[in-house]
């Protein structure tokens, strides 16, 4: 308890320090903004914003580490470099430039100016000291008290005592609420989040389209050079056998044997091709058994645990399957592993696949084409591959496919959310002032009526109104708590 309080107090003071730093950065930025907008010193603007962003980043990290959980950057993606026109000039609006310097600067300036996050940062940093002081209030109060006592005012001791009494309850909560406020003001807005997602999806779609086209070309080539060519040869061989049938049955027979062998080879090639397109076992049994079949086919001693729901989308299953296949193949080929563990499980609506092997490690996604292929394939489903492969092993690859399982995320329906919010925010009014406090007034026989409805109505209705108010507030509170708990529970069920 004491340690918790002390650490919360320490964090509060650190946040106050960070807030003062932020204030300084905000003032510098404000100066930069004013100078650039009023005197045209635009070159001051980007560095000023960068400074403010650094300060906001510090707050984001502190809030992320101490209370709210990670707070993402809210900024719009940086613009790409200016595009050179075929005639060698760079266009910016209606002006042409010889070098990309000015257009690049303008692009950056526009990006910084038009990003609402820039201005939200400034607003947060300007008000941060207020927030910081509130968070560090017990420490500030205690410090003031000590100073007062030292300068001979004994009342200072009382301030220290109050600070000490309040701190255990106040300090941890203050740090937590600071995190909430920071996340709200410094986190990405829904719009920034969407903009970012659109960018990512567009890139993923381009890659998926490219990959698909390449894949189709490969299949076409394989069919053309393999099965198709062999079928032509078989047809010709059978034709030749047909002609020889009467004159030289022996030779015809030999040709037919040849045709049969060629058809077996053609089948073998088709089988290999089909495996590369969509493995039959995946089509027949789904992901769980397909992964088990994969594990059986590798020379590795492989331990598989699968807890995957049925009814995943086929393309997603396929991407997951080929990812596991590639990872196991890598473990054999490059890692020299002898044992591997594959775990497939769901977390909420996400599908998570972990592949661990006891090989040499040192796998680097930027080098092999296999791993980038996996990433691209997963990218089409918003999936990511996280690879941890220190030299000397073991290698652990974690594949996360968000929203793989359909129909599992249930946000609170809007209507109910509004009811919930009303209940939570307003339940204290009937419960405390209109209910309990009015009851206290009535019992004490006070003539003060204030704004308590129960004391303004005629005498016989006073108690019923007061009790009704208490019941109403209690029902609102209990109902809201119950609904929230229920929703949490159903969410927890999804995560289990």
């Amino acid at each position, binding site marked *: 308890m004491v340690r918790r309080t002390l650490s919360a107090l320490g964090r509060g003071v650190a946040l106050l320090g960070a807030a003062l730093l932020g204030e300084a950065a905000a003032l510098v930025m404000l100066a930069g903004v004013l100078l650039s907008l009023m005197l045209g010193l635009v070159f001051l603007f980007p560095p000023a914003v960068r400074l403010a962003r650094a300060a906001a980043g510090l707050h984001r990290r502190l809030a992320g580490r101490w209370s709210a959980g990670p707070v993402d950057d809210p900024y719009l993606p940086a613009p790409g470099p200016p595009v050179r026109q075929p005639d060698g000039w760079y266009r910016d609006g209606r002006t042409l430039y010889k070098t990309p310097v000015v257009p690049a600067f303008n692009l950056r300036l526009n990006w910084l100016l038009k990003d609402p996050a820039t201005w939200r940062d400034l607003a947060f940093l300007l008000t941060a000291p207020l927030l910081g002081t509130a968070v560090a209030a017990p420490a500030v109060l205690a410090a003031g008290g000590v100073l007062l006592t030292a300068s001979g005012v004994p009342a200072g001791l009382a301030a220290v005592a109050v600070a000490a009494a309040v701190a255990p309850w106040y300090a941890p909560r203050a740090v937590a609420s600071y995190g909430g406020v920071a996340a709200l003001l410094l986190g990405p807005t829904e719009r920034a989040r969407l903009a970012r997602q659109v960018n990512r999806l567009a890139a993923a779609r381009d890659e998926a389209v490219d990959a698909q086209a390449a894949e189709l070309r490969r299949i076409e080539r394989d069919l053309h050079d393999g099965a198709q060519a062999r079928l032509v040869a078989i047809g010709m061989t059978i034709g030749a056998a047909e002609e020889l049938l009467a004159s030289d049955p022996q030779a015809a027979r030999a040709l037919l044997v040849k045709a*049969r062998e060629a*058809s*077996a080879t053609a*089948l*073998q090639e088709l*089988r290999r091709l*089909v*495996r590369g397109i969509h493995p*039959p*076992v995946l*089509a*027949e*049994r789904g992901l769980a*058994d397909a992964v*088990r*079949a994969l594990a*059986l*086919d*590798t*020379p*590795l*001693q492989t331990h598989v645990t699968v807890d995957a729901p049925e009814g995943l989308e086929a393309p997603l299953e396929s991407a997951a399957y080929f990812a596991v296949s590639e990872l196991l193949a890598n473990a054999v080929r490059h890692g020299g592993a*002898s044992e591997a563990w594959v775990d497939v499980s769901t977390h909420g609506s996400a599908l998570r696949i972990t592949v661990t092997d006891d090989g040499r490690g040192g796998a680097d996604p930027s080098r092999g084409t296999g791993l980038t292929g996996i990433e691209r394939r997963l990218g089409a489903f918003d999936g990511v591959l996280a690879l941890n492969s220190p030299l000397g092993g073991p290698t652990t690859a974690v594949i996360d496919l968000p929203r793989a399982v359909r129909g599992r995320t249930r946000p609170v329906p809007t209507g109910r959310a509004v009811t919930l919010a009303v209940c939570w925010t307003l339940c204290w009014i009937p419960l405390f002032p209109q209910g309990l406090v009015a009851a206290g007034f009535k019992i004490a026989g006070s003539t003060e009526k204030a704004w308590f409805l129960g004391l303004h109505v005629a005498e016989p209705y006073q108690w019923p109104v007061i009790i009704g108010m208490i019941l109403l507030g209690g029902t609102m509170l209990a109902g809201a708590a119950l609904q929230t708990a229920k929703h949490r529970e159903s969410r927890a069920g999804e995560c289990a």
Partner: protein
Amino acid sequence: MRVVLAEDLHLLREGLVHLLRAHGFDVVAAVESGPGLLEALVAECPDVAVVDVRLPPTFTDEGLQASLAARRRVPGLPILVLSQHVEQLYARELLADGSGGIGYLLKDRVFNGEQFIDAVRRVAAGGTAMDPEVIAKLLVSNARKEPIGRLTPREREVLELMAEGRSNAAIGQRLHLSESAVGKHTAGIFAKLDLAPSDDDNRRVLAVLAYLNSR
């Protein structure tokens, strides 16, 4: 010998019926879907069944599931499963009850009528017929098992043919060895793999397959 046949492709079904009839089999039922197959297997209780893995209505592994279900009801019911692709996983499921009378071959193997009919007869007699490709996969996934590495190349060849379900005589014919030489090799294999020797062909094969499947 009474046969139940399950194959959804009309041409292939007719071809198989012809092939089996030509070799003196009595095709008592030729069905084309999963539910019909299970019914026929249980009602007819044939001497052997030839079953395609992928059948209507779902076109997944209906044939395999029906076969497994039928063998749960009629233990040891001889079934030869045909497929366009072979999976160790399926082989393992078919062999799981350890009672023999199981075949698992690629569809291409019907091209060679003699060998195919030989496999059907072997399965009907309670033996096994595993596709060489299944055995090759089994050996790849067992490659790191130390005793397998100690086998001589000749012993490996004998092991592959034995795992496919062939008798000593058939193995000798294939490898141009005398039956007694094959017997010596098999004894050597069993000693190296630390398996109890057995004179019974079928039990011997099942022991080898169980060994290869134990991982």
